[in-house]
């Protein structure tokens, strides 16, 4: 082989290497730009190992409240405190059932089900696919809440104490998989809650639906989608 031929081959190889590196850089740059949104972005991990940076715990925004009282008036003001406790119960459940990366690999942790009363807990676990994301998408790398709303209707008894509540939830999130593909998660739920020992537990869910939808990386998330998320 002549020196000229060897140099020519080396030149072709270098061009190819440069092209490959360029392609890889393009792909990586695009993916990193999609996961760079603030707040509610779970750590880029893809593994159940603890993340290197602390994760923001999810909280539903302040709920819309309606109070139903069998005597007198003033249902809304009397419903604020129970609504806040319900917000806390449901925020914790959604954090553990949807947003915690540990859940993506290992499934919904057992402690998350403590949001449900013992009478309904086994049924809820059986209905995990409707109530939670869990490990439905094990290759999930990050997840960002794009919409989270909570409406609480409280039933007050003859002593104007809360007896029960229905909580309506709309919860949307966009996730990025390890291969760069995006998914959207859409959850709709109606929970029946009742007060138990200074907290509120879920006793039923007349509606619970969770959809996971794949979207190609060519799809551009709308700017507003990242602004309507819950507080970090």
């Amino acid at each position, binding site marked *: *082989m002549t020196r000229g031929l*060897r140099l020519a*081959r*080396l030149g*072709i*190889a270098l061009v*190819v*290497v440069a*092209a*490959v590196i360029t*392609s*890889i850089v393009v*792909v990586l740059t695009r993916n990193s730009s999609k996961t760079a949104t603030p707040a509610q972005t779970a750590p880029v991990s893809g593994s159940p190992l603890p993340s290197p940076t602390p994760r923001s715990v999810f909280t539903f925004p302040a709920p819309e409240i*309606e109070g*139903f*009282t*069998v*005597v007198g008036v003033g249902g809304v003001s009397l419903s604020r405190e129970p609504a806040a406790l319900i917000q806390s119960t449901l925020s914790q459940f959604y954090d553990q059932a949807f947003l915690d990366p540990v859940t993506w690999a290992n499934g919904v942790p057992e402690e998350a089900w403590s949001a449900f009363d013992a*009478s*309904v807990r086994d*049924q*809820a676990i059986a*209905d995990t*696919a*409707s*109530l939670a994301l869990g490990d*439905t*998408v094990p290759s999930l790398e990050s997840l960002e809440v794009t919409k989270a709303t909570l409406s609480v*209707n409280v*039933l007050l*008894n*003859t002593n104007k104490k809360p*007896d*029960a509540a*229905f909580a*309506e939830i709309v919860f949307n999130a966009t996730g990025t998989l390890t*291969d*760069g*593909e995006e*998914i959207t998660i859409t959850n709709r739920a*109606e929970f*029946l809650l009742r007060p138990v020992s200074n907290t509120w537990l879920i*006793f*039923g*869910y*007349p*509606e*619970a*639906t*969770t*959809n*996971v*939808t*794949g*979207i*190609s*990386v*060519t*799809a551009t998330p709308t700017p507003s989608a990242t602004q309507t998320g819950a507080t970090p």
Partner: protein
Amino acid sequence: MSAPSRGRWGIRLGAGLVAALLLVTLAEVWVGAGAKPASAAGETIEIQAAHGTSFVPALEGKRPLFILAIGSDARSPALEHGRSDSIHIIGVNLKTHRASVLGFPRDSWVSIPGHGSGKITTAMSLGGPSLLVDTLENLTGITIDFWLLTNFGGLRRMVNGIGGLTVDIPIDLDDHFSGAHLSAGSHHIDGWQALAFARDRHDFATGDFARSENQGTILLAALTKLQTQFAKNPAVVFEWIVLGWKNVTTRLSVNTLLDLALTATQIRAEKVTNQVVPGTTGQVGEASVVFISSSAQAIYADMRANGVIGS
């Protein structure tokens, strides 16, 4: 490494890189397009998982639940000591969530504990709802768990409060006593019309029996409405409870009413049996009465067993 080896290495490196480039390009194409249908916006979407479910905590139990629904002709606060114009035992099977409504003509001639024999409508005026419960338990052998009492105004307000009811009127109604004036067929009726339909006996050949059955029809129409509204918005149950609380007299707590309402949402209205005890009309002295047939014993036994007639 010899020169020829380096040459082969160079060729292999070049081929490998070309292959890698192809793979990256293919990956780009796959990620970008995938085997997915394209939406109008140019995105590609694929449903990967969709799950929906529902769980409503209805009451459960080994024995059936029996509720006595009473309509009084009195005004508040004498409601509990008026005569009962409408008397229905609602049986609910808490395993199958099936139910039956058994009506009693108000002129039914029965034994009233402590008061000899009389029209069943007088039992409540003699001893309140508890005496009516005793009378019915004595008659049927069914143990009543709860009673709910309303009156004309309460029924009217409740029907109006829930936005009216859709009821199948079996025949043309034109009765100036009750104010019922409706053609046969399906009608969306308001509180006044519901009350008139519930009171009308003159338009029906079977008089008091038909009236009792029509009252059961209104109960079932309300059940259907509750279920329709609940499916759209479960919190509507709270509106019904508040409305009921203001128009129904009961010893139940709000929590128990909620349990009952949630249970009602799980009973298929189209499968609820609506029946009136069989009997014949007759006279006792000057009074027109209904003599309940002995065949009613089989209905009581059937209902006692599992809450459902004809199961």
